[in-house]
Structures are given as C-alpha cells and as structure tokens.
C-alpha cells in the first residue's frame, strides 16, 4: 500500500522507542548476567575472574541444581497433561451450557489473584489440623487420619502439594483459551456436518478437535513456558524448603544470589534458565511441526 511513502524517520518513530526500551531492559541485563557468570563475586568486594568454573560447578558439583531442574521439568509435564482435560471441559461447556460465559469467567478467577493471596490460601489449606488446616481436618473427618501430614513441611510430598496448586490455578486459564477457540469455529461447519449425519461426539471428533489444534498448541506452549518460569508461587509458599525439597531453578537462582550472595554463581543459573526456556520452545515447535507432517 503506502509502503513506499514511509520515510526512515517515520519508521524510526514507530519502531525505535519500543525496540530500544525492550532491548535495554531485557537483553542488556541478560548480557550483564552472562558477564557476571564468569566471575566469583559477592557484590561488595572485587570480582574474581573464574572463567567457566561457575558453570562446571553448577553442572557437576551442585547437589541442589539437577533436582531443581528435574522439578521444573515435572512442573511442565503436569501442566501439559492438564490441557487435554481443559479441552474436554471446554467441549462439555459448549455442549451442555446455554450461557457458559459466567462459568468460564469463574473458572478463570484463580488466575487473576495475586500469588500472595494464593500462597496464603493454600498454606492454610495445607496447615496441620491443630492450626485449622482444611485438608488434614477433612482427612480426619472421613477417617483417613493416617494420610494426614504437614503437607508443606514434609520433603516427600511438599513438591506435589505445589504442583497441585499450580494445576489448580491455571486450569481455568486453559479452559478459557480452548473454550474461545471452540467458539471461533464457524457454526456453518457444524450445520453442514449435521446434514451429513455427524452430530454430538462425532462432530467433535471430526470437527472440533481438528479445528481447535492451533489453540491447543498455544495452550501447550504457554503451559510449558509458564512452568519453566515458575518462581513466585514457590517463593511465597516454601521458598524452596524444606531442605531444598521444593527448589526449582528460579528459586535456586534467587537463593544463591540474594541469600548466599554468590552473585556470579547465581548469574550462571540465570543464564541456564534463559537457555532452557528458549530450547524448550524450539523443541516444542519442532515437535508440532513433525506431528503435523506425520498427519498429512
């Protein structure tokens, strides 16, 4: 269109303010972190250049590091497993509810609450029965006393307690995305299918599921990225404890940086975190591409 008439100046006015702000506040700090990661530094004294030794310590000698990576990946797996369930609920909502918007909005509620609220709520659910903990009281009530435990202080179950909170919080988010995806499928397709005798589950099998695939993928990517970034929820609920049992990459980074004041080492973990998030996205895209190819 009027592309030819765009001067360099106009282009700069439209692009540069945003681009500069973004690069200066996202990529510059990450480069700085990459630089710090080559030093041993407590933030006050002299920086001591140590080359890549922070990385080799992290990968080979840090007993907390790999378990925290593993927990982060588990977060991603659980949240991916949740998405087919969200899709199913979205399909049911479309089918059985005449005015589904209210339900969809209420399912979304936990997403908009501050992590501070969520943390406080679930802490009180997981509390010991003597402190009024809901879960333990409920277990007592149905006669399962032997199942009661201090959910957040027991290193064997605390991480699962956190997984559950995050699944609970984001279920509504994924329902909303899938639901809107289904709403956007044209009614004409269904009507045409109805004439051909495809109705109910048959219509879902041949129309809804194939057509909702792009939205399904978006949900998957958001779930994985969100899980790899998981941070403040863990921070507010357990801060990585007890005895590092709920440590994820981000909390490990934070504790090393701001509690142990190992600035260089903390930065190395930050860089690992960034690389991991980027790699995961590339991998997911590859996976989707190849699954598409195999379907054709």
């Amino acid at each position, binding site marked *: 269109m*009027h592309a030819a008439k765009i001067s360099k100046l106009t282009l700069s006015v439209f692009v540069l303010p945003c681009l500069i702000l973004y690069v200066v*506040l996202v990529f510059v700090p990450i480069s700085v972190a990459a630089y710090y990661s080559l030093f041993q530094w407590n933030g006050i004294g002299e920086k001591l250049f140590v080359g890549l030794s922070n990385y080799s310590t992290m990968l080979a000698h840090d007993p907390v590091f790999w378990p925290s990576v593993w927990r982060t990946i588990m977060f991603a797996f659980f949240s991916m497993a949740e998405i087919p369930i969200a899709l199913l609920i979205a399909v049911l909502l479309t089918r059985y509810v005449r005015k589904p918007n209210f339900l969809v909005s209420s399912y979304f509620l936990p997403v908009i609450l*501050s992590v501070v*609220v969520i943390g406080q709520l679930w802490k009180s659910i997981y509390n010991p029965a003597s402190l009024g903990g809901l879960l333990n*009281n409920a277990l007592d009530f149905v006669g399962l006393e032997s199942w009661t435990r201090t959910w957040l202080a027991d290193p064997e179950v605390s991480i699962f307690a956190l997984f559950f909170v995050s699944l609970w919080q984001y279920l509504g988010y994924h329902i909303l995305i899938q639901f809107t*995806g289904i709403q956007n499928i044209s009614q004409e397709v269904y009507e045409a299918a109805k004439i051909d005798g495809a109705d109910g589950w048959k219509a879902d099998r041949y129309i809804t599921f194939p057509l909702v695939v792009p939205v399904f993928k978006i949900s998957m990517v958001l779930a994985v990225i969100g899980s790899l970034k998981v941070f403040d929820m863990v921070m507010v609920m357990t801060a990585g404890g007890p005895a590092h049992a709920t440590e994820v990459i981000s909390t490990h980074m934070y504790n090393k940086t701001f509690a142990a004041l190992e600035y260089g080492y903390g930065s190395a973990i930050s860089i690992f975190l*960034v690389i991991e998030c980027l790699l995961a996205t590339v991998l997911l895209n590859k996976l989707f591409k190849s699954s598409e190819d195999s379907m054709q």
Partner: protein
Amino acid sequence: MRKIAVWILFSVLFVSQVYPLVWLLLYSFKTNKEIMSGQFLSLPATLQWDNYSSAYTAGHYLQYLTNSLIVVSITLLFTLVLSAMVSYAITRFNWKWGKAVMLLFLIGIMIPIQSTLLPLVVIFKNIGILNTHLSLILPYIAFAIPIAVFILSGFFRTVPREIEESASMDGASVYRIFFNIMLPIIAPPLMTVTILTFIDVWNEYILASTFISKISLKTLPFGIYSFFSQYSTNHGAIGAYLIMGAIPVITIYFMLSEKITKGMVAGAIKG
C-alpha cells in the same frame, strides 16, 4: 443421566475455583479464635468490621493502593502505545528488518523476568533509580511488550488494508491513519492486552520486593506481605487486607472479561 454427571463436574469445578474468594471473605470477618478452629465454611458469629478498619489504618492501604495505581497506569499507557506502534510497523510497513524485529519480540515471551533481577539491581543502583517507581515501571513495560506485540500484530493482519488505502489517498498522513483510524479499530485486542498486563503488573511481587524498600513506594502485593510479617497474629486483619488488595483486580476483570477472550484468540491463531 449424562447431563447430571456433567453438571456435577461443572459444580465441583465451580466450587473449587471460586471457593478461595468465599473462604477469604469469611476469613476476613472472623475472630482469631474462629479462624484457628479450622471450620472453613462456618459463618463468623458477628462480622468483625474491626478487621477492615485495623487493616486500613495500620497497613498504609491507601498509600500502597495509590502506588499500585500509579505503577499500573503508567506501565499500561506506555505498553499499549509503544507496542501498537511497533506492531503496526511490523505488519504494515515494508522494511527489511520487520521479520527479525518480530522474532526478537517473540523471544521475549520466553524469557523469565527473574533472570534480569540481579543485573537490574546493579544497573539501577548505578544510575540512581533503585528504590523508585521507575525501577519497577521500566522492566514491567519491557516484559509486557512481547505478548502485546504478539497479540496486536496478529490482529493487525486481520484488518483489511482498504481502509488505510482510501484514507491515504485522501491525503492523511501515516500518523493520522494510525492514531485516528487504526487505534479505534484495534480496541478489542488492546483491551485484551490491558487486562493481561493489568493482572500481571498488579500482582507482581518479586521485583517489587527486591527493588523497593521505602514504605512510601511499596505496591500492594509487597505491602500485603509486609503487613503479614508485622501483624502475623491478627489473622482476620490479614484476610481483610487480602480482600482489599484483590478488589481492584477482580472489578477490572469482571468489567472487561467479555472482551478479553476475543482479542486473545485473534492474536493466538493468526500469530
């Protein structure tokens, strides 16, 4: 029969997702003793309005609320304008680096904000803006931009070009076309971006607690957290404070929730 089963499922979900707010509301009106008894769904014997007044007076509520509003509104204003302009340039202008710039923004969606924590502390300290609202607003804008560009440029691609072409033939400048014609057209996805950014920034806790230490500058989530540690024994007041902190975001959400979905999926599918 199947219908009943489905409705049971919907109801269970409804209770589990809405319960926290109800719980919190009840909690905020109870005495300490009632809270410790562990009767989660019991009603408070008398409504303890005291909880609210003590949270309000002792917790700097108005101060933190004002701070949150300042930070959120400046962040929103800049995020919306800047990312709308870039998205327009990426989808409509014919320039060599358009695709590369888009990719650069897409990468930002995957980068966790916490990986910039330490460098930002050091940089902000050196240029003297640590412990100011600017130290929050700048990274908030920067990390809100990628998803905004993703959604907005997805939407721009669906807008037919004829409108601009005829306006440009009538002699309207690019700026006029953008501000007077395009911005009103992209109101729905701007609404989506507004809600998503509002929720994120309103609830952001880690940066706020790392960069800000002055009481007069704290935002609500960090304010709430400080209130916990100071008044850890007054549970009802904490509940009241949590409710007061959640009210603005819940209000905004229910005011705009009809609009959030349209823009989000438009961006997602075309992006």
